Every structure is written in structure tokens, then in C-alpha cells.
């Protein structure tokens, strides 16, 4: 352990060299800006800046790319909270409570909480990276298809019931999301499902298009001509931007829990950030003493998902660096960049390229500090943005959405997808359906199906595998418990209602009781 500390000290020495620091800063600033622009994610940014790294020494190159990655996570929260526009799908959940906070004039506070949670979670993630990499990797291996299925199932059940309003509507929307998730090519047989002859749909609906359409465009369509986001000349003072002590205390434990969820999912390749933030949010809601306040501006609803997203981002690096297996597309790109530089990621990366590894780890922390320093003063400026009249603000946002979505895959079809989902989302919102569960169903559905079939394939069709494996059994048990509780509550409520209905009496002339009277 002390060896790790010595190496870390060495790493700080590398990270704080002027040259490396400058490139780190550049990456972080670019990442932050990219995060604020809707649709254009870190993937496009890293992809475009990759050629810059050819002539650079590998250490600053990777620091810059990594900086873009986690910098964009910071920026993504800003749009989600202030404009109900998740610039990046994982931040869709932050919209649910962040935007109501903005409407209450507490946008700055929400941003402040988001920043603090992010920094806290990132720091924890880095600590985990340093001291617990082997542990996390071994845990990740224990999660096979059966376990992943059980977790995802629990996530679906929890998430379907997480939105305020009638549970039936939440479940209906989750199912709708599941249906949308079905679109695409089936991985087991190669059949195209629900593509209606569009080759572009062969890979499924693009998540960025779905998130931006349902959250951003739908909201805009509904609020055209109707709403000023921050009404009155709200003077946003520095005091308003710093969350009060009470709010910090409220947000502390959700932060910690969110970090834990993010770290857990970060170690498992194949689970995206979107799932992580949803589960963190759902978890908070389920264990909260006052679940009704979620969706109306609960601080916990901002702290937990943000923490989860950031700790996942940091922990994501572990399987990439130590096993050479990328957790998601951005990691794959960074992996590619490493290989072009001539560095083979794997177990011997730490020993062969100690300056790279430890310098990178140290630069994560330095980068996060830089981001905090950058963002906290900027909160005021972002909030002032809202005073731009709606008629200029939202069309520009739409333009950025269109450009951002196009830049993901160079495809106009996807821009059309955003529009389509925007219209669908607007209709659903008008009918008072919650749209967040759609995203959840969309993300979890394919994973549940894939893992279910894969687990059965591996167990040669034996269904008992889900309860035979201990971790999976635990999650299945929790799911069953959840369903039982819901059914139990419903039955109890129905009985209570029946008892309070006035008893019906037969009208006869006599006062004599008969067997027909309720005794």
C-alpha cells in the first residue's frame, strides 16, 4: 500500500509538470464545453482531437483525452439542470429534479450540489482506482450474464415505479421504452426487428436521439409561447449559488450512495453510465423517507445521479488500463489512442509505463480540481444564460441539438429521430405521462434480454441458473420482494377502501333483520 502511495507521489510529480498540466487543462476545458453542448458527446470530441496526439508524447496525450472524457461529465449536468436538456443521456435523470429546482429559482444551488457531488465522487473513484483495482476487477468477473440479468430486472422493476404519478403510467412508459429498445438487430439470430426497412434502424434507435428528443425537444414543443424559464429579474447572487449547509447535509448520504453505485457499475464492462445514474436515482427514491418529493426538486435527486456518473467515469478506466478491455466506446477510443502511441494496455502497463499510469491517475485528481475551479465561478454565468429570452434560447438550443446529434454518426436520419421522439414526447407529456421511464426501459430492455438468453445458452437451457448462482439469487429475491410489496400495498389499499364504503341496506318495511343484512 505504501508502494502505491510512493508511486502516486511520483505520479503527481508527472502530472504537475507544466507541459502535462497545460494539456490536461486544455482537455478539461474542451471536455467541459463539449459537455454543455447537447448531443455532441466526448466520443466526437476525442475522435476529432485524436490526430493532435500523434505528435505528442503519450503522457500528455492521454491526459488530454481523459480530461475531455471526465470534463464532459461536469458540463452535462449544466444543461440538464438549467434547461431540462440532457446534453448527454446519463444526465437525463438529473433533469427530473434539477429542472424543478431551477424553476423554483434554486438553479444555482442545484448546480453547486452537482459540482460538489461530482468532485467528491471522482475523488473516491480515483482512490478506488489506486487501491482497489484488483478487487474491483475480480468483482467484475463474478458478474456473469445471470447476475447482470437479475440486476437489470431489479432496475427495471424499481425504475418502473420510480416516477411520481400513477404507478400504472410509469410502468406503461417503461414498457414503451422496452418496445423501442427491441428495434434493431437481434444479437442471437441476426434478425432485424421493427426496422420497417430502414437500414439505419438496423442498429437500433440512437440513445442520444431518444434522450434529446424526449427531454429537450418535447419540452420545447410543449412550452413554446407559454413559459419563461426564469421569470422576474431574479438576482442570482453568489450566496444563491452556494448550497446552504442544510442542503449539503441533505445531499451527503445520497452522494456517498451514488458513488458506491457508480463504482460498482464502473467495474462491470458493458453497463453504461445511463443505467448507473438511473439506478442511483431509483435507489435514492426507494430508501428515502419521503419519496413523494422526488421529481419536484429534491436535492438528493441531483446529488446521487451526479455522484454515480462521476465515480463510474473514473472507475471505467480500471478494466481498460489493467485488462485492455474497454468498458464502452469512449474507452475503446482511448485504448486505440494508447495503441497508436505504441503502448499495450494490460497488466504490465503499470510496471512498464509507470509514469503514464500514475501520472494519469494523478492527473485525474488535478483535472477534477481544475474543473471545480473553472465551474464554480461560472455557475453564475450559466444561470444568467437563462435570462436570454426564450425565443432566442431555445431555437439556438435546437440548433445545437441537431448539430450534436448529426456529429455523433454523421447521419441525418438520426436528426429525424430526434424530431420524431420530440413529437412523441410532447404528446405523452400533454397526456401527463412521465417520459423518464421510457429511457430506462430503452436502455435496460436489450440488456435484460441479451443477458437472459445468454445465461440460458450457457446453462444449456436450465432456468434454475438464476437462483443457483448466489449473487443472482439475491437480486431475484429482492425483485420478488419488491413485487410482493407492491401487490401487498395495493391489496391493503383496496381492503381499506372497501371498509370505508357505506354499507348497503335493503329497504323493506319491517325492522326485522334478515340474513341479507350485513351483520
Amino acid at each position: 500500500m505504501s508502494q502505491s502511495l510512493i508511486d502516486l507521489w511520483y505520479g503527481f510529480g508527472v502530472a504537475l509538470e507544466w507541459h502535462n498540466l497545460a494539456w490536461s487543462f486544455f482537455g478539461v476545458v474542451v471536455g467541459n464545453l463539449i459537455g454543455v453542448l447537447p448531443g455532441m458527446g466526448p466520443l466526437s470530441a476525442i475522435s476529432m482531437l485524436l490526430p493532435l496526439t500523434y505528435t505528442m508524447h503519450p503522457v500528455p496525450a492521454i491526459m488530454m483525452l481523459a480530461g475531455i472524457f471526465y470534463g464532459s461529465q461536469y458540463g452535462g449536468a449544466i444543461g440538464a439542470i438549467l434547461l431540462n436538456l440532457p446534453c448527454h443521456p446519463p444526465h437525463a435523470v438529473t433533469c427530473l429534479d434539477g429542472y424543478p429546482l431551477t424553476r423554483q429559482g434554486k438553479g444555482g444551488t442545484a448546480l453547486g450540489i452537482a459540482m460538489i457531488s461530482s468532485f467528491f465522487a471522482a475523488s473516491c473513484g480515483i482512490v478506488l482506482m489506486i487501491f482497489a483495482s484488483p478487487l474491483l476487477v475480480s468483482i467484475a468477473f463474478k458478474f456473469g450474464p445471470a447476475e447482470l440479468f437479475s440486476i437489470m430486472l431489479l432496475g427495471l422493476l424499481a425504475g418502473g415505479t420510480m416516477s411520481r404519478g400513477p404507478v400504472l403510467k410509469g410502468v406503461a412508459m417503461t414498457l414503451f421504452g422496452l418496445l423501442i429498445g427491441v428495434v434493431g438487430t437481434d444479437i442471437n439470430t441476426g434478425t432485424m426487428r421493427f426496422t420497417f426497412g430502414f437500414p439505419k434502424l438496423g442498429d437500433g434507435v440512437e440513445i442520444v436521439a431518444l434522450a434529446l428528443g424526449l427531454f429537450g425537444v418535447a419540452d420545447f414543443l410543449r412550452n413554446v409561447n407559454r413559459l419563461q424559464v426564469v421569470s422576474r429579474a431574479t438576482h442570482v447572487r453568489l450566496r444563491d449559488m452556494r448550497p446552504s449547509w442544510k442542503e449539503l447535509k441533505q445531499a451527503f448520504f445520497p452522494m456517498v450512495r451514488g458513488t458506491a453505485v457508480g463504482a460498482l457499475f464502473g467495474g462491470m464492462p458493458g453497463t453504461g453510465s445511463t443505467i448507473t445514474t438511473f439506478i442511483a436515482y431509483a435507489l435514492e427514491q426507494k430508501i428515502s423517507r419521503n419519496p413523494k418529493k422526488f421529481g419536484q426538486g429534491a436535492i438528493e435527486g441531483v446529488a446521487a445521479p451526479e455522484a454515480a456518473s462521476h465515480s463510474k467515469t473514473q472507475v471505467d478506466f480500471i478494466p481498460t488500463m489493467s485488462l485492455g478491455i474497454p468498458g464502452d466506446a469512449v474507452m475503446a477510443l482511448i485504448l486505440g489512442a494508447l495503441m497508436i502511441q505504441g503502448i499495450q494496455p494490460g497488466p504490465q502497463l503499470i510496471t512498464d509505463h509507470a509514469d503514464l499510469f500514475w501520472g494519469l491517475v494523478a492527473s485525474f485528481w488535478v483535472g477534477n480540481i481544475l474543473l471545480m475551479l473553472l465551474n464554480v465561478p461560472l455557475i453564475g454565468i450559466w444561470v444568467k444564460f437563462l435570462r436570454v429570452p426564450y425565443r432566442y434560447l431555445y431555437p439556438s438550443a435546437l440548433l445545437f441539438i441537431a448539430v450534436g446529434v448529426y456529429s455523433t454518426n454523421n447521419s441525418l436520419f438520426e436528426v429525424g429521430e430526434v424530431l420524431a421522439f420530440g413529437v412523441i414526447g410532447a404528446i405523452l407529456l400533454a397526456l401527463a405521462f412521465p417520459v423518464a421511464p421510457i429511457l430506462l426501459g430503452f436502455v435496460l430492455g436489450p440488456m435484460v434480454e441479451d443477458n437472459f438468453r445468454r445465461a440460458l445458452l450457457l446453462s444449456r437451457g436450465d432456468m434454475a441458473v438464476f437462483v443457483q448462482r448466489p449473487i443472482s439469487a439475491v437480486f431475484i429475491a429482492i425483485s420478488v420482494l419488491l413485487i410482493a410489496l407492491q401487490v401487498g400495498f395495493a391489496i391493503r389499499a383496496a381492503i381499506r377502501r372497501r371498509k370505508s364504503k357505506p354499507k348497503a341496506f335493503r329497504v323493506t318495511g319491517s325492522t326485522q333483520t334478515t340474513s341479507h343484512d350485513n351483520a
Partner: protein
Amino acid sequence: MDEPTRRNVVTRRTCLASLAALAASAWIPAARADYPDSPIRIIIAFPAGAGEAEARIVAKTLGAKLGQPVIVEAHPGAGGNIAAAYVAKSRGDGYTLLLGVSTFFETNPMIYRDIGYKPADLQPVSIISEQPFLLIVNASLPVHSLQELIAYARARPGKVTNATAGPGSPLDLIGKEFMVRAGVQIINVPYKGGGEDAMAVLGGFCDMLFGGVADVMAGIQSGKMRPICVTGSRRLPHFPDLPTIAEAGLQGYDFSVWNCLSAPASTPAPVVEKLHAAIVQTMASPEVQAGFDRIGFFPVSGTGAELSRRIATETEVWRGVLKKAGVAPQ
């Protein structure tokens, strides 16, 4: 205080004059320099990130040889058909090229009912790489050679699992062909590619895998994976002791995936010639050799005509494999 009256420079006359000048400039015969005089795009069919390493290595050196920047653009989807269709429909001026994978030309037309373009709209300019695969087993299996693997699988019909990247993908077909030739029954378990199949073998969920060098190198070095043989016809420089599948016992089994640069069929011949010459130089250059070495590809080059012949022969081979595997067009 009155401002001295300034003559307004932007009069109607000046506007008209400048517009006229602009219009006239369009008539100046485009004194085009020789090809290329503007950046060239290589379109790849993988989402930004996954398959870009190879394209970027080539783009860097090719750009230096041609004197113009070469950029990589991603149009993922539909197993490569989106990218291929995009290039097939673009202008044949030599500025849009496709990084084509052998499966686009050989198997996609048989797997997809409608690939979205006519194969005749694309002409191959040169092959650029070959990627053989390694047959890997989980290190906990008591299998150290191909013969042992075949014996192990024969003793457990329907129990050995092979991680693949989805039906119709080259790895899946290679696995099916292996089954047929070796006479064993193994179960193909599809994953979504991107290293997930390698993860499965690392974690012990699947027994074997046909993997690209880049995906499995780290696993081999950590000791959790054991390479058995190479699926191509050449031994890999990273593992000089590893026999090829043909040497190890399965005669006539030679599968690697190759990549090429293709251009729209309407590209004029002199442009294609120039491009071809630059590509040959690029693939022979030491930077590309070194770069490809790291990601496990063999750089090669050849003429378009050779490649067309190769496509024709290999298509027939794959047709047989697909029929035996029972894969029908989607």
C-alpha cells in the same frame, strides 16, 4: 456636435460590383492542381473508436505521401452497409474512400436482403491489411493444442462454448466452419463485440474464442487465456511458436479478414492509379509496419484487379459456409 458627414462607402454600386466580381470568379476555370488538392476522407463503418486505429495509422502516412490531410469519418451501421452505400453513391473524384472489410463484399450481399447499393458501384483500389485471428481457450481448460481441443470438444458434445461477436460476423462464421471441419459440436454464444467476447472468456463464462490480436493480447499476458493456433496461413510475429491451424491439423482452413480501400466505380483511372501508388508506398513504410504490428494486422498491398478476383473466389467459399451454417438472408 455634428459628425462630419462621411461618404458612405457601402453604396449600391459597390455592392453590385462586388457581387459581380464574385459571380465572375466562379467562371474562372478551376485551375485544379493535380489530384489531390483538398483533404481526402476515408469512411469507416465502425462507430468512432472501435475500428479506428487501423484507419488512423494509414491515414497519417497516406496523407504525408499524398501531400493532403486524410481524415477518418465514421458512418457506422448495418454491418458496414451504411458506409459502403455512402461511398458508392458519392462522387467519383477520389476524395471519398471506403475502408472496406472483406465481409462487406463477400458475405453481406448474402446475409442482407438489401444492402442499399449495387456492388458494381464500388471498385477496390488496393488491399491494405490482413487480420488473422487467434484461437484462444480459457487457461483453466486442460487443452494445449488443437488436437487436444478437438478431442476435448468431441468428448463433450454441445457443452463447449465459443464466444462470438454476433451471427453473420466473420468470427461467428469462422467458428461454424471450425465446427464443421473438425466434426465437433460447440455452442456459439454471441456477444456485442467490442471486447465483450474476450471478457467472457477471461471471466470463465465461455471456453473458447476466435479473437483478434489486439483484443486478446492483454488476456494472454495475464495468463488467463491460452492461444492454441492462428487461423491464417502465416504465423504471427508476436507468437512465432504458435502453429497455424493448417499446420496443427485442420488442412485447408485459412480464414483471415482483410481490409481494403475502395472508391466509387466512377472514379477516373488516373486518379485511381495515383492513389494506388501512394497506398503501396504507405503500406511498405516503416511507420505503418510498426503501427500495424502493434494492433495485430499484416500490412499488404495489391492491385484492384487482384482484389476483385480474390473477392470472387472467397465469396464462393463463404457461400458454402453460410449454406452449411444455415444462415438465411435478412
